[in-house]
């Protein structure tokens, strides 16, 4: 699909509105996603943005945000969704597969090698100690992401959102209920509450 979507009526003066000089080919898609994936320690999103928007100009910043928002509300690993949506937008299904293969293929090889090493040497005391230290930090990093994501809700004093957040936290983290069951209740409930709150705000 060519990126000449309708809202081109208002050209923003400062932003680069022309996104793709030339749409990427299959090999280019594979290589670009392989590169950002291999650079992405602890998360690929930053690198995906840098590659797609800044370096290759395949999308404008707005287009990228919209595409990522879509991938964020879909289930599954966001960045995997992004690769498929992005690749198929330029080159159809083969493009989606090329981007997906680039994103997942090379790191899977690396991780599989690490897994084999762990299976073989995981019981060595020095390695166990190192991994224990790394996992403590990794948990801290995850907690920081959670805090960062919570900030907008706290700033907005979104009590309803915080209440839903706390309910899910208790159900999964403390009660250890199965995820599908919790989500089958929580998703419709949360959508209904969001709709009611928005109606009240507009009314």
């Amino acid at each position, binding site marked *: *699909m060519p990126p000449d979507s309708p809202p081109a009526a208002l050209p923003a003066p400062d932003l680069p509105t022309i996104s793709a000089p030339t749409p990427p080919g299959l090999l280019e898609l594979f290589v670009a996603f392989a590169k950002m*994936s291999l650079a*992405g*320690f*602890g998360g690929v999103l930053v690198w995906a943005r840098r590659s797609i928007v800044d370096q290759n100009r395949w999308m404008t910043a707005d287009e990228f945000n919209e*595409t990522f*928002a*879509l*991938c964020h*509300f879909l*289930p*599954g*690993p966001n*960045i*995997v*969704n992004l690769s*498929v949506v992005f690749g*198929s937008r330029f080159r159809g299904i083969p493009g989606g597969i090329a981007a997906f293969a680039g994103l*997942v293929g090379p*790191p*899977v090889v690396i*991780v*599989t090698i690490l*897994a084999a090493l762990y*299976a073989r040497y*995981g019981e060595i005391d*020095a390695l166990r*100690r*190192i*991994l*224990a*230290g790394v*996992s*403590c*930090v*990794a*948990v*801290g*990093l*995850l*907690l*920081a*992401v*959670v*805090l960062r994501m*919570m900030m907008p809700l706290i700033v907005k004093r979104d009590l309803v959102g*915080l209440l839903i*957040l706390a*309910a899910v936290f208790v159900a*999964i*983290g*403390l009660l250890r209920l199965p*995820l*599908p069951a919790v989500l089958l209740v*929580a*998703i419709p409930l*949360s*959508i209904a*509450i969001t*709709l009611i709150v928005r109606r009240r705000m507009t009314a």
Partner: protein
Amino acid sequence: MNSDPNPIWTLAWTFGLMSLFAVGGANSAIPEMHRVAVDVHHWMTDKQFADVFAISQMSPGPNVLIVTLIGYSVAGVAGALVATLAMCGPTAVVAYYVSRLLARSTRSRWPAIIQAALVPLSIGLMGASGLILALTSDRTWPAALVTIAAAVLAFATRLNPLWMLLAGGCLGFAGVIG
């Protein structure tokens, strides 16, 4: 180690199903992975799960590759590939069709509403991930302190996470974590 006659098949349907429920990305599915891998199927111990999480965070690539490691520990290379494809495949197909559907009707307000409704859910899930992982890896006070320090540093600064992971490895090697 486990009595499952066909672990590959179990991996495929377990992660295939999980991929469709993983709202908010791989990190919010961690409690479910922990429940399935440690409590339900006894594929690994608590400690091994914490190790696998640490390895996945140190490795390049999307965080979802923790399933590759779980798959490997269950059924070797085949298990690693099946778990990865099962966790990424179904949701990739869904993403493809939904994006094509939305490309035709971008004016709909439903995506925005669904997204707003899902944000608190996915943060709650990630918080639960943090709690479960903290309980499995922080079994001593120094360990808990390292976690808190990393959380504060990552929240307040833009320090590259890789340096913090390295520092954690050094502290662990030095025997500080205990």
